[in-house]
């Protein structure tokens, strides 16, 4: 029976996570288009199905049936696998985030996380770094100057904003004394960390938006200067896969914010049912996602060099100061 | 073991240097006066020198958690380093303005490198050893390439970097195998475990790899190929400091590891070290004979001197005091020789060092400068009664006492060969001066630096006993109290 615990259950969990994330991705595009439409007083998609609800499916068919074009001068091997790397990188991150406590089924206790790693938070940072290669190498393999520039910018941006992000995570670890998601969520039973760590939250939120290349910080794409950057040479299903990676990144980031700062799956009456825990997490993540979209619709894109300066000269020192203050306070309290 | 055991006093000289480096970096942000920043750095190294002297005079201080010792051996190395650093800063004050180097980075990295060297001299743990070696190496890679406007400096830095990192990998592998063989990474622990595992293949392999790594770092033949290019391409003041400091630090660590940790394996390492010594001396001297560029000649001469010092290392315990004396003497005379070159060097055409022809007639134009150069050349050649002579004397006599007569004889023959190219410089200076030769730089700091080096070289030759007393018996407390 050992192999059920060791292999079968994680496999089923992974499958569930992947399917759910893919569905969420599809409807995320719909929600975003609707919301951005409303922000600028348009309707957004409303043709396919009631309220345009079938739009994502129509888009999917369109992407799949488009002609596959591989430009002649590209590095074929990398060009083809890079979208896959990007999406794998974003999917794999989710594996360590608990979406609830645990429940009993068929006489087994089933935890609502694929793998409860005791360095979970660091794992997330590491995997996000690996997903970057999808964009980086894809831009390089395209053999196009705009793509290369987009890839370089993306890399520089992610490396830059990984630092303040790490500093915010270090502050959390200082308070909770653990890097395991379960412990961090448990530490927020009475008070979500956003109350204790307002600065840390801000730092994490901003760097999070930079990490997932969301507008107004979508430096790798910038249609007006880089002609959509790393994805210039991509079309059809391969472009759709990049697109998918971006949206899944966004969803995962929102869940990370919810878990690290908003108490994760905890909430009033959450202990009653695992389903309720899931609902709480989804609600919190939805709020964060709404803010992401809101920011995109409201703020114009920043200039690249100013954005890098902001990261190095403001966010990193802020994160450091926050960590120092946190450490001193924790030392005094303990 | 806990945090209360931390004895900051035992690493006082190094800490002072680190603090000075930070002050220099910060001052550089607001202060654009390059001489002023140089003077700050000078204050830092002087304070370190004083602290080292005080610690040498005072009672022994405890080790820093088995990580670093402040025993006599470490303090003498600190003395050599801080003397070298004082001289290096003095000769740089004017030079870096002349060749337009960034002051903050230059002095800051110099101080950090010096502190790394002192930590290496004090290291009693493989981890401290490795990290301090890397601090000094990485700071020196950057210093070698500091003249970013000159591709030759870049080339020097690249060669130094690639071969240095390659050597570090061997060194590290050696450390890993030592750890595997003895189960510990502290030198004291390894020393205690060695007798019980004696000829364990892993231990011997680790020792061999460690030797290869150190041989690279001290530029022993056949691991020397980077040296001439790096010494020639780097700015002269950096070369002066690096030829002395990196070498002294490397030998300090080598001696501590070989003599204090592996005395029972003496029979295993004496022959490789001896062969290295012979190859290094001979090759260095023969190659130096062919050089027309004084800076490059000094580079090969520094290889040769590494060979002489290796003779002392091969002598084992008997050679320790000789090695220390030699390092001090070499610091004075070599930096002094470079100081003269710096005075002669003109920014545009001499980026790769002064040609021998440029020495012509120096006696007539600048008699004192030429006299100082003569002292340094005589001392490097090992003429009595200068510092270099006693350095060689102690090292070779230690070799004889350890039964390595062959090494001593080869060393003496080599000294005779080397006299030719050192004296060639002196002879060139005595020739008539060409009319159109430019005036060498005049700068008080450079004069003081050259003067100190020359006087030190002479004094150390006339009164060798004071230093000898200092360096004798350091081995008894090689691991501190």
């Amino acid at each position, binding site marked *: 029976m050992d192999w059920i615990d060791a292999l079968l259950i994680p496999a089923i969990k992974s499958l569930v996570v992947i399917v759910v994330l893919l569905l969420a991705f599809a409807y995320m595009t719909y929600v975003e288009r609707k919301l951005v439409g409303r922000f600028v007083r348009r309707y957004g998609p409303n043709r396919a199905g009631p309220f345009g609800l079938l739009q994502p499916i129509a888009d999917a068919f369109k992407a799949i049936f488009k002609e596959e074009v591989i430009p002649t001068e590209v590095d074929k091997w990398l060009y083809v696998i890079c979208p896959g790397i990007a999406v794998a990188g974003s999917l794999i991150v989710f594996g360590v985030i608990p979406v609830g406590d645990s429940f009993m089924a068929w006489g087994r206790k089933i935890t609502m996380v694929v793998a409860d790693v005791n360095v979970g938070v660091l794992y997330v940072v*590491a995997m996000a770094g*690996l997903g970057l290669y999808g964009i980086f190498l894809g831009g390089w393999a395209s053999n196009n100057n705009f793509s290369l520039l987009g890839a370089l910018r993306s890399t520089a941006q992610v490396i830059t904003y990984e630092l303040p992000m790490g500093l915010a995570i270090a502050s959390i670890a200082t308070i909770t004394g653990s890097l395991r998601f379960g412990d961090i969520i448990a530490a927020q039973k009475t008070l979500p960390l956003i109350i204790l760590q307002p600065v840390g939250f801000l730092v994490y939120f901003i760097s999070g938006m930079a990490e997932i290349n969301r507008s107004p910080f979508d430096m790798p794409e910038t249609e007006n200067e880089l002609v959509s950057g790393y994805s210039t040479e991509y079309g059809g299903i391969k472009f759709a896969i990049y697109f998918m990676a971006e949206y899944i990144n966004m969803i995962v980031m929102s869940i990370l914010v919810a878990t690290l700062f908003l108490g994760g799956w905890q909430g009033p009456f959450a202990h009653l049912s695992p389903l309720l825990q899931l609902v709480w997490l989804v609600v919190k993540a939805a709020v964060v996602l709404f803010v992401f979209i809101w920011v995109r619709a409201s703020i114009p894109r920043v200039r690249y060099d100013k954005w890098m300066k902001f990261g190095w000269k403001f966010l990193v020192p802020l994160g450091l100061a926050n960590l120092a203050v946190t450490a001193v306070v924790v030392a005094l309290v303990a | 073991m806990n945090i209360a055991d931390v004895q900051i006093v035992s690493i006082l000289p190094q800490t002072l240097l680190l603090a000075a480096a930070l002050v220099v970096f910060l001052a550089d942000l607001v202060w654009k*006066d390059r001489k002023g920043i140089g003077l700050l750095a000078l204050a830092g190294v002087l304070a370190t020198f004083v602290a080292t002297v005080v610690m040498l005079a005072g009672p022994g201080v405890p080790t820093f*958690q088995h*990580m670093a010792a402040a025993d006599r051996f470490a303090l003498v190395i600190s003395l050599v380093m801080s003397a070298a650093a004082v001289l290096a800063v003095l000769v740089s004050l004017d030079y870096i303005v002349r060749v337009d180097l*960034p002051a903050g980075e230059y002095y800051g990295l110099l101080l950090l490198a010096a502190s790394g060297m002192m930590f290496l001299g004090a290291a009693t743990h493989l981890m401290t050893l490795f990290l301090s070696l890397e601090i000094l190496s990485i700071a020196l890679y950057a210093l070698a390439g500091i003249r*970013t406007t000159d591709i030759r400096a870049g080339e020097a830095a690249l060669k130094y970097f690639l071969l240095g990192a390659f050597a570090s990998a061997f060194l590290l592998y050696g450390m890993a195998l030592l750890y595997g063989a003895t189960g510990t990474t502290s030198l004291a622990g390894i020393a205690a475990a060695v007798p019980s595992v004696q000829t364990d*293949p*892993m231990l011997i392999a680790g020792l061999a790899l460690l030797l290869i790594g150190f041989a690279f770092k001290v530029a022993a033949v056949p691991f020397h190929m980077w040296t001439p290019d790096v010494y020639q391409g780097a700015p002269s003041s950096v070369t002066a400091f690096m030829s002395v400091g990196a070498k002294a630090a490397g030998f300090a660590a080598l001696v501590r590891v070989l003599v204090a940790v592996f005395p029972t394996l003496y029979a295993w390492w004496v022959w490789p070290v001896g062969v290295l010594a012979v190859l290094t001396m001979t090759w260095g001297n023969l190659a130096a004979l062919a050089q027309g560029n004084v800076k490059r000649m000094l580079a090969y001469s520094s290889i040769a001197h590494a060979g002489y010092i290796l003779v002392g290392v091969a002598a084992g315990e008997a050679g320790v005091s000789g090695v220390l004396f030699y390092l001090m003497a070499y610091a004075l005379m070599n930096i002094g020789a470079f100081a003269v070159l710096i005075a002669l060097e003109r920014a545009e055409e001499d980026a790769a060092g002064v040609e021998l022809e440029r020495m012509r007639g120096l006696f007539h134009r600048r008699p004192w400068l030429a006299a100082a150069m003569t002292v340094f050349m005589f001392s490097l050649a090992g003429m009595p009664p200068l510092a270099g002579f006693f350095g060689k004397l102690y090292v070779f006599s230690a070799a004889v006492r350890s039964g390595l007569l062959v090494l001593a004889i080869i060393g003496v023959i080599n000294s005779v060969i080397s006299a030719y190219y050192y004296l060639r410089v002196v002879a060139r200076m005595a020739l008539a001066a060409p009319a159109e030769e430019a005036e060498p730089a005049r700068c008080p700091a450079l004069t003081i630096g050259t003067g100190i080096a020359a006087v030190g070289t002479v004094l150390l030759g006339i009164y060798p006993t004071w230093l000898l007393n200092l360096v004798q018996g350091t081995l008894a407390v090689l691991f501190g109290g």
Partner: protein
Amino acid sequence: MTATPLETVLFIAFGAVAIAGALSVILARHAVYSALGMLVNFVALAAMYIMLSAEFLGIAQLIVYAGAIVVLFLFALMLIGGRRPAEQGRLTGGLAAAGSALVVVFLAEIAYLVMRLTGTAGAKGTVTPDVIAQLGHIQLLGATLLLEYILPFELASVLLLVGIVGAVMLARARRQSRQE
């Protein structure tokens, strides 16, 4: 140290991947593929670290090596001439042969030494995987690092300072000489 069959299979698989990665570093015709080979090697080693109950270092390996160092290499490559897929860095005949011979000798030596290895060398410590599991790997590592190894830890920070200052100085475009 005994390994379960599953562990053995994984060890061999990751080992093979690591070797393949390393080989492609030295054999790839284009430096970008070398960098990718290096990435594969690093990731395989990270997996091995995690299996050897050093999970913090495994993750650190991913963050530091895979996430930062390889990226920096690629960055430098692309700054320098990534767009030219021409061969850069041919093999040199004579030197290559000499080098390979040297390396084969070295390898044979090490293999011989390892084969002669009798049992476990050195004294065993007290930090068994059980102890690690009980105290928590990160907690244990952190305490050791900051109490027993505080000096190397600080030296590492000095080293990073040297690295930062040096890299900024070297890579910075030299401006006009500053005012005296």
